């Protein structure tokens, strides 16, 4: 902060302006002084916006970009600063609620480690440059005169949708390229593929609230899966009243959803599909359910997975399997979900397919799985990311097929397993431009770094991949002026890039805001009537106030194309007896929130560890290794070694070691750097045959004690209530008896 030095004349000037302000406005309008690099500026509230009242907070609607779910937010703005984010009650997706990552969006925005100036690589190191230089360099390398065209140019982004997606595609088209890699570690691609193949719609609506029982194979729908806040509200309805639903979660290590399950089942990783088929087998053969909806091939497959075989493969007791099947039959409609731990295997597609088959057998289609249709404007629809794009990108880069890459909203060098060798391949690309807010691992390897405005300083539209009910376009509007004048809007950059390729293509539009207004105006029936040319300003303001624009829902019915492939369960390698599970958590997510102090200090939901990585193991494993909580173990896979302190609890399969993802950053600011380990790095090669998604849950590991005690910082020093009535539990039967009317 530079010191403000007044001399007498300046002081008089200040007085003069405020005096004028007071005269003109006729009352005491306050003025304030901002100072930036010694320049003083007097901003009188000459004609203050009527909603700007000093001391009174005003709420503005926008959209949360902390994860791909695109919940609606409202920011409380006071004296030009956004102070607090709250859920937008107008959003059908999150109905006024927000998760901790969303709350912490403020600290992404106000992060002290944000990039403030463009950087250009000179002599091997990134050096500060002006925007003009940086853009000139980009024009030189990717402009019309560069000769770059076709597949030699690529964009690498995170999940992207709305008008940014439209402009990005236009830019790709202008270069004649179709290489858009969309990378997202925590994704639902396999689920979407299965739904698309079997039901004809990739994102059917999941009615957890309508279900009387939810059986989830590792779908952490309260934490990280698809749209957690939307599902949390559904879950609250699912849990209340006379028909309080039952939640059964089967997964290798306990997720937040698993921690809330009525029955949590520790499942051998990769056998989710086997369990689903085993349940189908029990339902058909023991419970005599009508299986006429299933194709003969599927029935044949189901018959191969009798109780004893299922028990042997999954490690679940037979009586338990039968009991779950009975519950599923009794509590109709039910809902079977399959999440990351089911999908993240070589045979992940088949596992999810088996879960969907169970849904069909139980008659849940059109009951708890509702047709959602496609988004009315397909060009705006979400381009969901996945890890298959990461390996495709690595292949393309490794083969020298790329001359220039632009990347935004994704940190592939952090997330890529060692076996992809992405860092070397990435460095071999001649020209890499990062549109980035932070100096993360990928940005540090870029040739040009363009500092982007934060999500709370920028304009944009977003379309959720999973729409909770009504289809909406989510509007992102700035909640305050940019903190750093050196940053620019991503939308403006896209416009600039397009103009660079096709000069004059977006003339007449001042900036991305202008583009958005006209683009939204071009959606029929939104901003102007049939024959009205002018944009209806009050309708536009209405949209910005709501932060949401309702779109007509195309209720296309499901098409059924049932098929079933056999399970692909891999046997254990005796040298690596444990399964390594890189746990996703709604705290640091895939590592993108590791630079947020609130989230670093927010205790993990299961282990209550802060500021560090840990490995979860079962007490039996701990006894085998002779380690206690906090002792450091090594987790070894053929692709690398992690040293990490252990947390021991019973919410994990005996043969599993779970290390949360998110830590282990080499870069990414003061709060993230050099903290913990990154389990993604040592994952073994392997991918789902159908979708190409990396088998994140398919790695095998060997564990060994190091004999050292590590630093495991936890909130709370006890694991039990010591006989006190702190959290009391009653049975659902009692609850139903007493709260039937609610």
């Amino acid at each position, binding site marked *: 902060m530079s010191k403000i030095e007044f001399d007498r004349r300046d002081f008089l000037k200040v007085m003069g302006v405020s005096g004028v302000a007071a005269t003109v406005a006729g009352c005491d309008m306050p003025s304030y002084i901002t100072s930036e690099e010694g320049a003083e500026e007097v901003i009188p509230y000459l004609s203050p916006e009527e909603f700007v009242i000093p001391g009174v907070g005003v709420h503005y609607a926008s959209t949360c970009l902390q994860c791909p779910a695109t919940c609606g937010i409202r920011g409380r703005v006071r004296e030009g600063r956004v102070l607090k984010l709250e859920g937008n009650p107008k959003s059908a997706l999150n109905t006024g609620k927000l998760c901790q990552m969303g709350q912490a969006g403020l600290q992404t925005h106000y992060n002290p480690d944000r990039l403030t100036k463009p950087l250009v690589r000179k002599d091997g190191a990134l050096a500060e440059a002006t925007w003009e230089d940086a853009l000139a360099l980009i024009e030189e390398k990717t402009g019309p005169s560069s000769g770059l065209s076709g597949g030699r140019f690529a964009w690498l982004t995170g999940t992207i949708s709305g008008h940014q997606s439209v402009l990005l595609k236009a830019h790709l088209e202008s270069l004649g390229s179709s290489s858009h890699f969309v990378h997202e570690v925590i994704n639902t691609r396999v689920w979407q593929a299965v739904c698309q193949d079997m039901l004809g719609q990739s994102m059917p609506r999941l009615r957890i609230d309508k279900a009387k029982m939810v059986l989830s194979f590792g779908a952490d729908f309260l934490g990280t899966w698809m749209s957690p806040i939307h599902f949390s509200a559904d879950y609250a309805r699912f849990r209340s009243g006379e028909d309080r639903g039952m939640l059964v979660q089967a997964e290798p290590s306990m997720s937040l959803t698993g921690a809330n399950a009525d029955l949590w089942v520790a499942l051998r990783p990769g056998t989710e599909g086997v369990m689903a088929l085993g349940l189908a087998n029990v339902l058909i053969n023991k419970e005599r359910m009508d299986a006429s909806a299933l194709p003969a091939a599927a029935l044949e497959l189901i018959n191969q997975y009798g109780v004893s075989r299922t028990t042997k493969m999954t490690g679940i007791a037979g009586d338990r399997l039968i009991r779950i099947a009975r519950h599923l039959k009794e509590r109709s409609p039910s809902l079977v979900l399959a999440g990351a731990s089911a999908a993240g295997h070589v045979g992940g597609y088949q596992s999810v397919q088996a879960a969907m088959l169970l849904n069909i057998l139980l008659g849940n289609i059109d009951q708890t799985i509702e047709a959602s249709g496609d988004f009315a404007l397909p060009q705006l629809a979400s381009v969901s990311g996945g890890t298959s794009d990461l390996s495709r990108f690595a292949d393309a880069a490794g083969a020298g097929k790329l001359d220039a890459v632009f990347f935004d909203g994704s940190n592939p060098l952090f997330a890529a397993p060692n076996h992809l060798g992405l860092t070397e391949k990435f460095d071999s690309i001649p020209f890499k431009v990062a549109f980035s807010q932070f100096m993360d691992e990928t940005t540090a390897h870029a040739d040009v770094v363009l500092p982007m405005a934060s999500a709370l300083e920028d304009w944009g539209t977003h379309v959720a991949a999973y729409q909770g009910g009504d289809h909406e376009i989510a509007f992102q509007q700035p909640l305050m002026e940019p903190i750093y004048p050196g940053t620019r809007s991503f939308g403006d950059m896209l416009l600039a890039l397009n103009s660079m390729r096709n000069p004059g293509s977006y003339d007449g539009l001042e900036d991305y805001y202008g583009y958005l207004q006209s683009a939204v105006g071009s959606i029929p029936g939104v901003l102007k009537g049939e024959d009205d040319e002018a944009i209806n300003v009050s309708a536009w303001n209405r949209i910005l106030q709501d932060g949401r624009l309702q779109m007509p829902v195309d209720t296309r019915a499901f098409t059924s194309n049932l098929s079933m492939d056999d399970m692909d369960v891999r046997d254990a390698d005796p040298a690596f007896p444990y399964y390594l599970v890189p746990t996703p958590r709604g705290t640091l997510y895939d590592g993108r929130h590791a630079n947020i102090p609130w989230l670093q200090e927010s205790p993990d939901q299961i282990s209550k560890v802060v500021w560090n990585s840990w490995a979860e193991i079962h007490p039996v494993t701990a006894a085998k290794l002779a380690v206690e909580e906090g002792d450091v173990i090594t987790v070894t896979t053929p692709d690398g070694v992690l040293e990490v302190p252990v947390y021991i609890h019973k919410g994990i399969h005996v043969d599993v070691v779970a290390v949360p993802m998110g830590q282990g950053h080499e870069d990414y600011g003061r709060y993230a750097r050099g903290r913990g380990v990154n389990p993604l790095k040592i994952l073994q090669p392997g991918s789902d045959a159908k979708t190409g998604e990396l088998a994140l849950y398919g790695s095998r590991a060997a564990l060994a004690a190091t004999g050292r005690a590590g630093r495991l910082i936890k909130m*709370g*020093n*006890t694991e*039990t*209530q*010591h*006989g*006190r009535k*702190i959290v009391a539990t009653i049975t659902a039967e009692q609850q139903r008896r007493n709260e039937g009317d609610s």
Partner: protein
Amino acid sequence: MAEETHLSATKDIDEKIAWAEINSDVLRSMENPRMGYWLAVVVSICMLMVGVASEVYQYNVGMGPAQLNNPHMWDLYISTFVFWIGMSHSGTLLSAILHLFHADWRKPIYRFAEAMTTFSLMTALVFPIIHLGRVWNMHWVIPYYSDRGIWPNFRSPLVWDAFAITTYLTGSVLFLYIGMIPDLAICRDNAIGWRKRLYTFMSVGWRGDDRQWRNFRKTYLLMACFLIPLAVSVHSIVAADFAMAIMPGWHVTSFPPYFVSGALYSGCAAIITLFVLLRYFFKFEQYMTLPILDKTCKLTFAIAMVWSYLNLIEFASVWYGHDIPAKEVLIAKFTGPYSPFFLGMLFCGSVLPFTLAFEKIRRNPMLLLPISIFLNVGMWLERYMIVAPTLSLAYHPWSWDVMWPGWVEWGIVFGSFGWFGLLFLIFVKVFPSVSMYEVKEMVYHRRRVVYEDAELRAHEYKKGASGASSAAPATEGS
């Protein structure tokens, strides 16, 4: 001759000491500090500086470096505060209570015990102040008229503490001073230079005439009567800091008597320590005699037993009660991470005093010095064991935490001993640490009034001598 030495070992004081000898012995102790004295002063100042440096650091940084944390909001500061308050009870016991009981063997040793009372109170007073997070606002605890009309919370035991300690400090300073006036007059008559001026001022025109003596006696008796309930209440109120809380292990009805007995206990042990040291360094063998030491030890032993008994009934009432958290705290004291300290406290506080059951040990200053120090270590541990285990382990298991004090805390506790030592060292060179006029009284009584010492009689009886006088014991002169 052998007969004589034995007698001297059984008599509280040798009645053949001349008046002038008493004066000169005591006055000698106030002069010519030797090398060892200066060394002790330097060590005390260094210790004090460590404490001051720690406090300056804490003042600027906050309570964090003391390693205090969420369950452990109090720790060494408060336990050491209680310890020093406890130490302060010795002087009152010896001068006031024994004065009322006419136990005249107290006379040669009560002066330094009273000084100890005052100085340990002054040390104790520091702790509740520095343990405040915002020391600079400490005066808010005191009820003074303020424009804002805000008063302290009279329901809070900490406010009672502030009242009780300041009252007790005032009382004990007055008591010490009043008891010293005749001696100060003696000093005045023998001093030159700044000492003359000081003693002249402080002896407030004492001439030793009849009216002055009569008023002096009355005032002294009155102060003694006033001080006894004050001493009991001060430690009861300190006990209320804990007993008024609802925490298991603190919420104990028997805490006030337990604290008072513990206070007397640690005070007596400290008297023994200082007794041995003064007797050796100032060559006060003639006044601080072994029989007096023996009696002090007996008193200490008796109080140790009372303290142990109160400990036992506390354990028993917790054990047979149905307060589960309190029971958990008790079990944790015996078995948890603090158990070495707790068992150490029980050993030092309840087992070690049994050594005082032996006359040989009671009359062996070289042995008593370490024993008395260990008794006080036990009493310090007792206070620590009251504060820390309860905080580490209370109702809400989520917040259970074991915590060890940080360097700032240790520094300040260490410094407090330097502060106390420095005050005491200054005192012994400026003021007579043995009451001259009362020793003279004692000698006078032994010489002139036929006074039957029970032990002497027993001794004579053992010898089979029949010369025991049958004259009725006269009332000891007031």
